[in-house]
Structure formats: structure tokens, C-alpha cells
């Protein structure tokens, strides 16, 4: 348990230690954005009735006003309510997609890199073939096969990102495995399990938040993309940025901007925030990895 706790906290140490540097500030902005979205995703739907997101709840295409701060859309849904509920949807997909990919990809990468040999070659072969597929196309294929729904989309996206986690973890494991301190641990009589957990996992886990943030940002875009293509969620999901954007498109020509601006803005804000976090952490972690050896 203590080990798990340390494994969980270790990646965030640089965030605290380097908070005054540019990448530190960037990461904090990103983290702030993420947290705000999570709060909106959790509490927003509690405050806003789901009825407002249903078709014909209101007159169609009302421009933003005090009653409808973001107006209503082509089939009479409140855009603000859709956006808030959409946050929850996106976060759910992101959580399922990125987390599941992490939970599968990280241990596989660790194992593959640590054990090596035939097992490693097999894993690499499989993962590389998955990785070689264009992400959106693959997700679309899977979605077409297993059907719509938040969970299914999450799974479809997971499959794209597992190889990413796998590769980064495996490479990091391979280089960590060659470290002298790992050999030293072996000379001390440490069992393989101890070496893998206390020495290798511990030094590999530091790269996880980086890939998590970057892949999460990508997840949002992929999910929106799927919805945009009409392959995403069921029609009665109370909020779906991608589909709302797609629906809004045909009104753009007639000067109706609010139905596309707000879902679009949400997508951009969340992905940019996550990218900030990812890139910032990457800058923090990589020099740190170097500095710790220098």
C-alpha cells in the first residue's frame, strides 16, 4: 500500500518542486483547466435539469439572452445545458479511454521491457501493428463493430492509446533496466518483483502523467471526431460536443454562431489545457530524468 501511495505521488513531485519555472506555470494552468472541467462535469448536471437538453424544450434558434445564455439550437435545446452535460460526457469518455489504456498499457509495457525475450517481441509486434493504424479510422471501425454508447466509444479509444502507453513505458523500462542501480539491487539480492516495483516502476511512472495528459487531449478530439462523423454516441445522450458541432454546422451560413461556438470552445479549452499540462510536465520530467543521473 505504501508503495502504491508513493507510486501515485511520485509523478507530481516535479510539479511542486519546479512550480516557478515556465513549464511549471504551464502545467499548473493546464491542471487548473482540467480541474475546472472536472468540477463542471460533476456539479453542472446536478444544477441543470436534463430536460433542457431534450429536443423541443424551447423555441428553436433563440440567440443568447438572459434566459438562455448561449441561446438554443436548431431543435430547441438549450446550448448552455448541452455544453455542461457534454462536459460530463467528454470526461467520462476520457476517463474510460485514457485510464483503461493506462491500466492495460502501463503494466504490459513494464512487463515486456523487464522480461524481454520472446514475450517482448510478441507484444511489440502486436502493439506496433495497432499503432500503425490511423487512430480515428481504427476507432471508427471498432465503434462500427461494437456499437454506440459512452462506454463503447471509451473502449474504441482505449484500443488506440494502449500502444502509446505500452511503447513509452516499455522504452523507459528498457533504459531503466540497464541502470547501474538496478544491477546494484540485484547484487543486493533483491527479487525480480522487488526490482520491478521498487526500482523500475518507480522510475518509469514519472512519465505517465505526460502521456496521460497528451492522450487525454487526443481522446477528446477523437471522441468529438467520431460523433461528428455520426459514429459516436446515441442520439439521446444529453450532451455531445462533437455531434452538437456537427449539427450546428449547417446554420453557420445564416449567421447563427452560438450553436457552434460554445461546444467548439469547450473542446478547444479542454484540449489546450490538457496539452499545456502534458507539454509542461514533459519539460519538467525530462530534464529531471537527466538531472537525476547527471
Amino acid at each position, binding site marked *: 500500500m505504501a508503495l502504491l501511495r508513493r507510486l501515485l505521488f*511520485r509523478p507530481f513531485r516535479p510539479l511542486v518542486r519546479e512550480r516557478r519555472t515556465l513549464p511549471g506555470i504551464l502545467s499548473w494552468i493546464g491542471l487548473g483547466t482540467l480541474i475546472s472541467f472536472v468540477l463542471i462535469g460533476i456539479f453542472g448536471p446536478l444544477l441543470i435539469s436534463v430536460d433542457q437538453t431534450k429536443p423541443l424544450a424551447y423555441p428553436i434558434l433563440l440567440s443568447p439572452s438572459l434566459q438562455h445564455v448561449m441561446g438554443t439550437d436548431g431543435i430547441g435545446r438549450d446550448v448552455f445545458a448541452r455544453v455542461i452535460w457534454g462536459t460530463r460526457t467528454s470526461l467520462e469518455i476520457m476517463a474510460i479511454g485514457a485510464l483503461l489504456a493506462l491500466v492495460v498499457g502501463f503494466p504490459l509495457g513494464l512487463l515486456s521491457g523487464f522480461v524481454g525475450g520472446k514475450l517482448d517481441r510478441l507484444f511489440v509486434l502486436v502493439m506496433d501493428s495497432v499503432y500503425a493504424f490511423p487512430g480515428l479510422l481504427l476507432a471508427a471501425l471498432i465503434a462500427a463493430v461494437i456499437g454506440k454508447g459512452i462506454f463503447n466509444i471509451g473502449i474504441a479509444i482505449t484500443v488506440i492509446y494502449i500502444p502509446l502507453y505500452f511503447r513509452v513505458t516499455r522504452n523507459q523500462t528498457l533504459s531503466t533496466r540497464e*541502470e*547501474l*542501480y538496478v*544491477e*546494484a*539491487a*540485484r*547484487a*543486493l*539480492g*533483491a*527479487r525480480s518483483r*522487488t526490482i520491478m516495483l*521498487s*526500482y523500475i516502476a*518507480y*522510475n518509469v511512472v514519472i512519465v505517465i502523467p505526460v502521456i496521460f495528459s497528451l492522450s487525454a487531449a487526443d481522446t477528446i478530439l477523437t471522441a468529438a471526431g467520431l460523433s461528428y462523423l455520426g459514429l459516436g454516441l446515441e442520439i439521446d445522450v444529453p450532451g455531445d460536443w462533437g455531434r452538437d458541432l456537427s449539427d450546428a454546422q449547417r446554420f453557420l451560413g445564416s449567421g447563427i454562431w452560438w450553436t457552434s461556438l460554445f461546444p467548439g470552445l469547450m473542446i478547444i479549452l479542454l484540449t489546450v489545457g490538457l496539452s499545456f499540462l502534458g507539454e509542461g510536465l514533459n519539460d519538467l520530467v525530462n530534464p529531471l530524468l537527466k*538531472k*537525476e*543521473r547527471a
Partner: protein
Amino acid sequence: MTGPATVVKAEPTDEILRLDDLKVHFPVKMPFVQRLLQRGETVVHAVDGVSFGIRPGEILGLVGESGCGKSTVGRACVRLVKPTAGRIFFDGQDITKLGGEKLRALRRRIQIIFQDPHASLNPAMTIGKAIGHPLRIHSSVFGPQKTGSEEFGEWIRQKVLNAMKEVGLTPEEQLYDKYPGDLSGGQKQRAVMARALILEPNLLVVDEGVSMLDMSVRAKVLELMLDLKRRHKLTYLFITHDLATAKFICDKIAIMYLGRIVEIGPAREIYADPKHPYTKALLQVIPIPDPDRRAKKVLPRGEVPDAVHPPAGCRFHPRCPAVLASCGWEARDFVDFLDEHLSDPKRAGDDETILGPIEDWRAKGLVASLETNPLKVRKAVERTNAVLVEAPVAMKQAVESVSSQNRTVIVRFRSHHQLLQSNVQGRVVECLLYQ
């Protein structure tokens, strides 16, 4: 492989560590296609028949140039690399093939310290944790209390603080929770020593353990080692390329060259009167910090050859200033010599047109040959003889014949003498001069 034979009398003595004709060969990494084309296996002969023993409380220095296999011997002793052949005894027990729990148990008694203290410490572990980690790893043996209990943690903490004090890593309470990145090089090396010592091992392998420390810290760490030897009767295998430090600290010295020990014996005697030509060369090049004692040195030629194809006979023969005709001359020595000859325009004259290009020469064991056209063969033989006149005397004497066969010039060497180890004035030397 017609390597030098090894005479070992492995009598069960009071030795704590005994290596018996130890060999460690590493496969050479090669592209797949090349591996297919190559017949036979290509290996690095990192350690190729090393035998020695260490008695309790003794410091044995293992000295030699880079790549001669010192570290590999050290790693084999703690079983971090698998011996290809030969045997390792620790405290009378054969540990060559030990595995699993038995190997783990052994590792409580033999510890190793590497050159780079920074790289030897897990950057994510505090110093206190790192030093105490061996105790946790072996908790089943050590823990008087149940692992994980409060007292066990406290017991470890006390032991760690003691160990830190013992190696002079103070103030220990404050350093306990620091990360390796926060410590200086000397402190890190002390931490590594504390970690190695906390299990109270009997044998400590120190692989270039002080080379990276600066002068003032080095002196302190060396003193610490001597102190531990006195107080705990600790035994050391001290691996270094620094002969001066080795002289200061070691009781016995083993000089290694290209995977073999060429001279081994009491430090005092070897330093006072080195016997093996390689030992002599090494001792000669140690700079003396006194400008009034500059002296012209007789240096061996060239550099250490490749351990993939070590020279035949005595491995030092291509560079040895005292080389004899029987030391192991072979075809490729002649080709190398010819290459050198041809590349000096002043000496070569028109030899190049008759004996060159050098790539056309084939060297196989004792026979070097050049296929040329029938008209030139006679002349080529003549020239070869002429070139050989300028060769080192020993090489010249080792040539059995220069002859021709149809269109081929053949230079044949005599086979070399069997190289044995001889006892010379209290030490063992592997050199034909003393056989």
C-alpha cells in the same frame, strides 16, 4: 583454441574466495546476415582462464588496462554475469551454478561497489531507505520481529543510522531523508559503502570504487576501507587501473592482461621487482611527481588488441619488449608487420607492386599466404625474405620457412611453446622468460 594452459592446484585452503580457471565469454552483437555468414561462434574473451584465491582479511588488487576483464571478474564473483567455464568457490562452497534462494543467501555475504556512486543509487529512494533496503530484502533472515511491524522499521532505522555513522556519513539524522541528488560524490560513495556493509558481508568487491572521487575524498574513502578491514576482518577484491593506489592499499596484486592474469603475488614483492614484461611496462609508466626523476621509458608498442581474437601464445607478444621467438608469433603478426612496412614510402620502395596490396594476404593460424601471378612468385619470395630482415628479431626467428607453391607465396611460422605459469620468487608469473 590453443590458449595457454593453466596449472592450478586448487587445494582447499583457508581461502574465502577461489576462482578456478574462470572463463567469461560474451557473444558479439552482429547483424543477422553477418551472423549467418560467419562460421563458428564469435565471442569476446573477456575473461579467459583466471585463477586466484583471497584469504580472509586480505585485500587483493586486480589491476590492468581498460577492457582487460577486471570488472567482468568482479561481476562474476558476485554472480552478476554467468561464468562460461571454470568454477568459483566461496568459503569452500562451489557457487558457480548457485541459483534462487541459495544465490540470494550468498549475496548477503558478498557485496559489490561500483565505480559510479551516483548511478548506483536509485534516484527515487532516500538515502536512509536505500541503505536499509538490503535489510528489507533479506528481512526473513534478519528481522527479529515480524516484517512490516513498527518495531521492525525502527530496528532498521537504528541499524541504518549506525551504518551511516560508521562510514562517516554524518550528520546521519539529517542525511537520512535526503535523495541521492542532494549529496556530494564523496557522500554518495559513503552511502553506497554503508549499503554494502549493512548486511555485514565477508567479501567486498570494489570495482574502481574510488576512481571517480577527487583526491581529498579518495584518501578518506581509502582510509575507511583499511579501517573496516582492521575492525571487521573484511576481505576485499579491489579492482582498479591505478597502480599507485593499489600499491598503497593491497596485500596482494594480480596483474591482468586481455582476460588473463599474467602475474600475481604479494604486492610488496611485485612492486619492488616486477617480473612479467607487462607488469614492468605498467609500473614504468606511472608518473613520478618529481621533475628531477624524469626518465626515458621503454614503452610497449601499440594498444591492447581486440579480445574477440586474442593473439596466440602469450597474448602480450605483439607488444612485448622482451618477446622471444617462441612466444606465439603467427601469420597475422607478419601481415601486420608487412602492412606497416608497405605504408612507409621510404622503406617500401617498389615492394608494394610485388607484395601488395596488403588485402590480398591471407593469414590463417601459422600460415600467411599471398596468391600472385606465376611470373612474380619467385620475386615475391625473395622480397618477403628481404622484408623479414627488418622484422623484429624474435619474429624473424619464429619464421619456419618462406616458400612458394605454384602461384602462392607462403610464410610459415613455427608453433609456439606451451605457456605455463611458473613460481618466481614468491609469485606466479605467466611468461616464457621464466619457464
